[in-house]
C-alpha cells in the first residue's frame, strides 16, 4: 500500500488557504531562526530543538484540522504548536521559562502545550506521542465528535515500541488516528538509514494493516494532499494512516549540537529544496498569489516574532513557590 503520490499543485487551494499556509510556514521559520539567535544569548534555559526546514509537514497536516482535532508532538515541537494555532507570544515566553508562557514557564520548549487548541504537548520522550493520540482518537470515536488525532514523531521514534504498539492498536480499534513520521534523517546523531530496518518507515504500515504513504517533506502541496486523504478517511471511520514525510532539519538535533555526524547537506537543502521557496515559486508562477502578498506576510511575521521576543524577555519569571503548584489537583 506504500506509494509516492504525484506532485499536486496549488490549484486546489483558495488564495486565502494559500495565504494561511504560507503565514504558518513563515511564522515557524522566523520563530525558529530567532530562537536560534536568542539561544546563543544564553537567556533561554534547558534544551531547544528547532523545526526549521520541516515547516511543510506541520503546515500541510494541520491545514486539515479544526477544533475537534488534536495533535501530539515531539521534542521538536514549536512548528506543530504554531501550525495548530498556539499563540507565539505565549510560546516564546514559555521557551524563555517565563510565568506568562503557555505553561506558565513550567514546561519550556520541550513541553509547550495548549490543550484549548488541541495541542497535547511537545514531548521530551521519544515515542511519547503515539500512545497519547490513540487515547485521544479513542475518546473521539466514543464521543462520536468526528475528531481526528495526529501524532507527529521522528525517525527515531518510529523504532520505539510505543509507536509500533500504537500503530497496532489504532488498527485494532479502527481509530481516527494519523501517524506522521517526520524522517529528517537522524535520530539525534544516528542516521535513519542505519537505524530503521526497512527502507522506508512507511513500509511498516502494511504490517499494521493501514495505508502508508511517503511524501516529499519540502513540498507543502504533497504533504497537504496526503494528509487530506488521511484526515478524510479517519473522519469517515476508515481508520488510521501512516504518512512518512522526508526532509532535512536545518539545525542540529539540539541547539549546541556540533553535527559532526553529517556532511553539509543543509546548505543544499536551503538552496534548492526549501519549502518556503518552493511554495513561493509554485503559487506565484501559477498566478494564485503575488510576491507582494507574500512579502507583506514576511514583514508582518517578522514584527510579530520580534514582539514575542520583546514580551518574553520583559516577562517575570515564575516564583520559587510555583515549583510546588500544579503537581496535583489536590493532595
Amino acid at each position, binding site marked *: 500500500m506504500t506509494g509516492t503520490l504525484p506532485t499536486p499543485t496549488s490549484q486546489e487551494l483558495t488564495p486565502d488557504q494559500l495565504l494561511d499556509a504560507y503565514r504558518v510556514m513563515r511564522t515557524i521559520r522566523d520563530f525558529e531562526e530567532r530562537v536560534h539567535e536568542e539561544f546563543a544569548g544564553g537567556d533561554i534555559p534547558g534544551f531547544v530543538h528547532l523545526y526549521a526546514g520541516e515547516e511543510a509537514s506541520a503546515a500541510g497536516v494541520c491545514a486539515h484540522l479544526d477544533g475537534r482535532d488534536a495533535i501530539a508532538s515531539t521534542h521538536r515541537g514549536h512548528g506543530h504548536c504554531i501550525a495548530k494555532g498556539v499563540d507565539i507570544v505565549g510560546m516564546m515566553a514559555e521557551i524563555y521559562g517565563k510565568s506568562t*508562557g*503557555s*505553561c*506558565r*514557564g*513550567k*514546561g519550556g520548549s520541550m*513541553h509547550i*502545550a*495548549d*490543550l*484549548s487548541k488541541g495541542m497535547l*504537548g511537545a*514531548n*521530551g*520522550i521519544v*515515542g*511519547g506521542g503515539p*500512545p*497519547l493520540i490513540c487515547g485521544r482518537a479513542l475518546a473521539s470515536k466514543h464521543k462520536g465528535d468526528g475528531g481526528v488525532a495526529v501524532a507527529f514523531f521522528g525517525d527515531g521514534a518510529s523504532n520505539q515500541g*510505543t509507536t509500533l504498539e500504537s500503530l497496532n492498536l489504532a488498527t485494532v480499534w479502527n481509530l481516527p488516528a494519523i501517524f506522521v513520521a517526520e524522517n529528517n534523517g537522524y535520530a539525534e546523531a544516528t542516521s535513519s538509514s542505519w537505524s530503521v530496518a526497512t527502507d522506508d518507515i512507511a513500509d511498516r504500515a502494511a504490517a499494521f494493516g493501514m495505508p502508508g504513504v511517503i511524501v516529499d517533506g519540502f513540498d507543502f502541496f504533497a504533504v497537504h494532499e496526503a494528509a487530506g486523504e488521511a484526515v478524510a478517511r479517519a473522519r469517515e471511520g476508515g481508520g488510521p494512516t501512516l504518512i512518512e514525510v522526508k526532509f532535512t532539519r536545518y539545525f542540529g538535533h539540539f541547539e549546541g549540537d556540533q553535527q559532526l555526524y553529517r556532511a553539509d547537506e543543509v546548505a543544499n537543502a536551503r538552496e534548492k529544496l526549501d519549502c518556503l521557496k518552493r511554495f513561493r515559486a509554485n503559487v506565484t508562477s501559477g498566478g494564485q498569489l503575488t510576491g507582494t502578498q507574500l512579502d507583506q506576510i514576511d514583514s508582518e511575521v517578522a514584527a510579530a516574532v520580534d514582539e514575542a521576543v520583546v514580551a518574553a524577555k520583559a516577562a517575570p519569571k515564575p516564583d520559587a513557590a510555583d515549583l510546588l*503548584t*500544579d*503537581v*496535583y*489537583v*489536590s*493532595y
Partner: protein
Amino acid sequence: MFIDFMGVCFDQIFNQAAKFRYMFGGHAVTPVVVRTMWGAGLRAAAQHSQSLLSVFTHVPGLKVAAPSNAYDAKGLMIAAIRDDDPVIFAEHKMLYDTSADVPEESYVLPFGEANVVREGGDVTIVAIGRMVHTALEAAEELAGSGVQAEIIDPRTTSPLDVETILESVENTGRLVVVDESNPRCSLATDVAATSHRTRSGRCGRESSWSPARTPRCRSPTPRGPVHPGRAKIAGAVKTAVDYAR
C-alpha cells in the same frame, strides 16, 4: 494486571500522566485510575510477586492507594475515580478472597487518611495491604505477653498520613514498620525516617526511640525468610520494646 508488568508502561505513567498537570502549567487534568495487583503470596516467582508501591509513591504527580479490606477498597476506589489526579490503585492479590461489611451505597474514603486499625500504647506498627492482617495476628500474640500494639494502616502511600503515624509514635515511643517490599527506599525506610526526623523536633524522648523494620533482605521472590510473617513482626516488636524499655 500484576504490578510487575508496569514496567512496560512506565513512560505513560511516570512521564506522561504524572507530569501533564505540572508541565502544562496547571492547564491539564489526568483523571486516570490504574488498577494493579501487588504483593507476594501466590508463589508465582520473580515477575509476579513484587511489592512496587514505593516506586510509584516516589513519583510526584501520582497518588497511590493500597487498601487492606473490602470496605476500604470501595471507598478508596470511588475516591480514586472522582479524583482528577492519576491514581495507582494497588490491590493485594491475597486479599481478593477476604470479605467485610460494605454498604450498598456509594461512599468516599479520603486519600491521605490513615486508619488506626488497633489501639495500643506500647508500640506502633505501620503496615499496609495484606500486612495489616499479619500485623493484627502478631498484635494478638503480643497482647498475650502484655505488649499492646497500635496498628496503623496508611491506606494510601501518596499522600501519606504522617500526622496519624507521628501521633501514635509520640505516644508509644516505638515504631515497627511492616513492609513486603525490598528494604532500600521502601515504605519501611520512608516511614521510619520521616517519623524519626519529625520526632526529633517534636519529642524529647529521643533516647527511647527505636525504629525497626522488616524485612531485612533483598529478594525478587519475597517468601519464607525474606517475607514478614507473624513471628517476625512479633520478634521485631519485642526487639523494639526491649530496646526502649
